[in-house]
Structure formats: structure tokens, C-alpha cells
């Protein structure tokens, strides 16, 4: 059970308080109707799935309730950093 630093609570809390919410920094297009089928597919389904440095979202669902971003190494499972939603990509 990994420990995750919640940037809002500013402490490390156990994984079972959190829900992973997939890849980070995939913004919903402002005007979806203007998107091509290909662009829409990319938004919906295409994922980086890197071996190594990965930007992902978590929600401290059984805590402060906030979604936030994290950079984690998918090979070691170690977090590099976590930061609040809306902050620039790290």
C-alpha cells in the first residue's frame, strides 16, 4: 500500500484513502463539437502509458476529496512530486 502525499492536506496518507484518476493534463476541449473524430479519439482514449516518469491524477476521495496531479515512476512506483490541480505540469 503506497503512501501518497496529498498536496492539499500536505501529508502522506495511505493509498486506500485515494482513487487513481488516470493520466493527468488531458484537458477537455473547449468546443468538443469542433473536434475531428481523430482528435476526439485522442482525447478520449489515447494514453501515454510510459515506462518511467508518468503524470497522473489522484483523488483524495476518503480525505479532503480533492483531485490533484502527481509525477510517479511507473517502474519503481516512487513519487517524484504531487501538486494541486490547475498548477502547471512538472
Amino acid at each position, binding site marked *: *500500500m503506497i503512501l501518497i502525499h496529498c498536496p*492539499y*492536506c*500536505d501529508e502522506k*496518507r*495511505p493509498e*486506500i*484513502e485515494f482513487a487513481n484518476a488516470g493520466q493527468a493534463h488531458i484537458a477537455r476541449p473547449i468546443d468538443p463539437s469542433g473536434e475531428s473524430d481523430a482528435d476526439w479519439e485522442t482525447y478520449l482514449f489515447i494514453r501515454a502509458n510510459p515506462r518511467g516518469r508518468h503524470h497522473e491524477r489522484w483523488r483524495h476521495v*476518503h*480525505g*479532503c*476529496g*480533492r483531485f490533484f496531479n502527481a509525477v510517479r515512476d511507473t517502474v519503481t512506483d516512487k513519487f517524484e512530486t504531487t501538486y494541486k490541480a490547475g498548477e502547471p505540469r512538472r
Partner: protein
Amino acid sequence: MSEALIRYEPVPETPCVAAGVTISLAGPMQRFALRARRAEDLETVLKVRLPRHIGASEAGIACLGPDEWYLRAEAGATVPTDSGLPVAITDVSERSICLVIEGPRAAEILMSGCPLDLDNFAVGRATRTIYETVEVIIIREAEDRFHVELWRSFGAWFWIAITNAASH
């Protein structure tokens, strides 16, 4: 007429007494979920001071998140719910029950299913967390007394789980 209506609770009203710990159901109380971008707006509406740090609780108000507070007051207490300010005040008085876990083994018993380090959980701290798979709000009222708030429908399960842990 309301006094004629019986309340039905999901857990026994007689406390569970085990070695070093007593588990009992707290009486009815008023509960409000408070949400706002700026704490000041809520303070203006409620005329009370709000704790600013997540996990802090003062005068019955716990800060659970950056824009979320949890107010508990004695039964019958009311607060203004409508205001011109961008705040959300929602009555959740009957959403939860509160179990009082008291005694020298209180923290130990809670840690049977709660993954937090409650030895290092200061008096006055409050947080939403989890007991095995059930979400709870834990408030440390005193060195040897915790309040555990959980949604009613989970009450029966939680009662068996926590009293089991207490009896071992």
C-alpha cells in the same frame, strides 16, 4: 407531534464495554456540510470563526478540505442556509451517526481497521479517512476519546467490526 415519532438507530443504544475501551452511540445532533471558496464568506454568513488548516477543528467546526468544513452542533441548532454569498450550506444532520470510542485502548481499537497513525493524531484533530472499506470522519476529542462519524447505512457493519476488534 414530532416527539411522538420514534427514532430508529442502526446500532444498539446500549454501549459496548470491553477491556480498556467503551463504544457508545452519541445522541442526535445537528450537522452541516459547509462549502465555500473563501472561508470569510462562510464566516460572514455564520458569524463564527472557521479553522483554516485542513485537519483542524474548533468549536465544533472541522476543516476537512480546502473548501470544506463540517459543523456539528447540539440538536435543534439552526444556521442560515440562504445567503447572497457564494457558499453552500447543506443540512446533513441525519446522514451520519456518531460513535464515541473511549478509553486507554481507543486509538489501538480504531487502528484495527484504520490505516492512519493515531498515536500521532493530536487531540482536536479531525479528518475524513477509512476503516477497512468504510469511509469515516475521525475526531480526537481527548487523549482517550474519539468521535467516529459514519453514514447510517454502514452503522450495523461498523458496530460489529469495531466491537469485534475491541473484544480481542
